[in-house]
């Protein structure tokens, strides 16, 4: 990532340059070892593209995204997900997609092959506030307070009910599906429902002595909402209360994480894909704090959600969005 040559841009909160600026300021204080460790600038999305399909060809799609118009080829190995695994021919102009890709030819990096395409994928995580049959209104912690509308697909109702036995107001819900306008058609339960009501997660264990440098748990993802679609970052469940943010529900969560601020950087490792990246904290992961679940994508992770990644960051780190999580290890600045 290139640090902006404009100092003023670097002082705009939330920008990549602002995150890099804080890293440089930290490095100006601490010793060289820390500076070298954190000299890797925050991750660049090298294998993820987001955008809207403008053209569907027999062997490729054309995408209009933040990087402009881009073309991605298919191969027989390309996996397309739109509520379920399907053929690329099911894609339609106007579909919002996120693509994991790689270069077809190192000599011609502009030619890219889509390895995995997620079309109109969405996720709703939050507290159920109203129920009517298979329809739910969910408080997902939006800034404007508006609830998310979720409809559980008929074919998935039993599966969702098994993982979420208490589909009643006050209980947590976390489902993945396809977006249809302002509604989510849920097809996959992202986790097992906690037995406690929202805001009443079990108290975490007492911690004696300094926290370990690395903490393991699970990493999940969230929809962009107000964030730029291709943003690489994460929602952190333990933002410093002194930052002035309103206290969120869920108490301290079931994994003790050190307090950080927006813009702090962490190194997050996907244990399943053996990939890691330095990512900035870009939002408040208060909802993640309410869950004490484990990820079982590759072995069983310790309890607790460490990070609520943006979609682009989740895919960039090798996660598959329909899985909902990956086993993760987070390393903090020393």
């Amino acid at each position, binding site marked *: 990532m290139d640090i902006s040559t404009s100092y003023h841009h670097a002082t705009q909160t939330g920008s990549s340059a602002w995150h890099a600026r804080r890293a440089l300021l930290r490095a*100006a204080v601490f010793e060289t070892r820390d500076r070298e460790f954190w000299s890797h600038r925050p991750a660049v999305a090298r294998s993820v593209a987001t955008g809207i399909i403008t053209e569907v060809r027999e062997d490729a799609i054309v995408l209009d995204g933040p990087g402009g118009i881009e073309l991605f080829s298919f191969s027989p190995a390309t996996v397309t997900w739109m509520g379920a695994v399907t053929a690329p021919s099911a894609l339609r102009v106007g579909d919002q997609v996120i693509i994991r890709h790689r270069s077809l030819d190192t000599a011609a990096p502009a030619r890219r092959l889509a390895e995995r395409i997620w079309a109109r994928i969405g996720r709703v995580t939050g507290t159920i506030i109203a129920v009517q049959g298979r329809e739910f209104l969910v408080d997902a912690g939006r800034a404007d307070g508006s609830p998310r509308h979720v409809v559980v697909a008929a074919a998935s109702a039993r599966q969702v009910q098994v993982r979420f036995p208490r589909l009643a107001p006050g209980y947590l819900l976390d489902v993945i599906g396809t977006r249809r306008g302002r509604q989510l058609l849920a097809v996959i339960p992202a986790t097992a429902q*906690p*037995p*406690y009501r929202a805001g009443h997660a079990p108290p975490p264990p007492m911690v004696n002595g300094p926290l370990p440098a690395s903490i393991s748990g699970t990493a999940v993802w969230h929809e962009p909402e107000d964030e730029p679609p291709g943003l690489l970052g994460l929602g952190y469940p333990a933002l410093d209360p002194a*930052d002035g943010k309103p206290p969120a529900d869920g108490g301290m969560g079931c994994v003790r994480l050190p307090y950080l*601020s927006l813009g702090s950087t962490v190194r997050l490792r996907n244990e399943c894909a053996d990939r890691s990246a330095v990512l900035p904290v870009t939002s408040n992961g208060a909802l993640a704090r309410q869950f004490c679940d484990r990820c079982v994508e590759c072995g069983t992770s310790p309890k607790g959600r460490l990070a609520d990644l943006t979609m682009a960051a989740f895919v960039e780190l090798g996660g598959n969005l329909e899985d909902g999580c990956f086993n993760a290890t987070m390393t903090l*600045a020393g």
Partner: protein
Amino acid sequence: MLNLVDEVQVGLLALLLISGSAAKLWRASGAGSPGHATGPTAMFPVRLRRSAATALCATEFALGAGLLLTAGSAGARGPAVVVRAATFVLFCTAVGALHELRGHRPDAGCGCFGELSRTPVSWRAITRAALLCVAALAAIGAPPVRMPRSAGQAWVTLAVAAAELALLAVLSPEVGQLMIRLGHAEPCELREVPVDRTLSALRSSAPWRRYRQFLVTTVPADIWREGCWRFVVFPGVLASRQVEVVFAVYLASRHGPVRVGVLDTGADLDGSWSGWSGSSPDPLELSTHV
């Protein structure tokens, strides 16, 4: 002597029942989730746990208060006998319930004293409940509780009470939990530290006194936290260059170390900017490192 022992039971039982009720109420006000029931209520269906916990808490408080109210001159009358008999029934039920809980939910604590009672039920908790059951039985026949008639009697009363409390403490896993909590200190990464306290510590530090003269303003341009450190940034001028002076304040104690660094923003005082050069060597000596 035997009457003295019986009289002591009334006070002890009342103390234990009221403190247990208070501890449960404290826990309920903090968490309040039936999904996290401890003790015998964990064996109830989820939808009944809140009601069961409330009923148990109310019963304990009512019996404890009843024991106190009927301890005196009313001690020989019907109400006192009824309250003491109900206490006996409660503790007998507790013995059975704890035994069942140990079999069905071996991971559950007894919940006797709220948050302190998360240790899985063991023979200690069951024995304690059985002893309290015996104490309640002895209290049924106790005469009205009166002030000791002599110093010797007072000492005997205290000795009996102390011995019984010591025995209960030996049988109570809550005592160990309480000692752990009293001796526990949160790591600094997890402590909530107000920004004002950080700024106060910064302004009383040697690095602040040394670098204050180079700052353009004492209003921070940026503040953020990373674990045990809080970073505070001020715009400054150094050797005719615009800089940012960043102080890192350690949050573990009120007078923790303060470190400082200087970042050259790459702008001359005349406003011309030659690109962001990143951090530059600080011509001044850095503050003491941790």
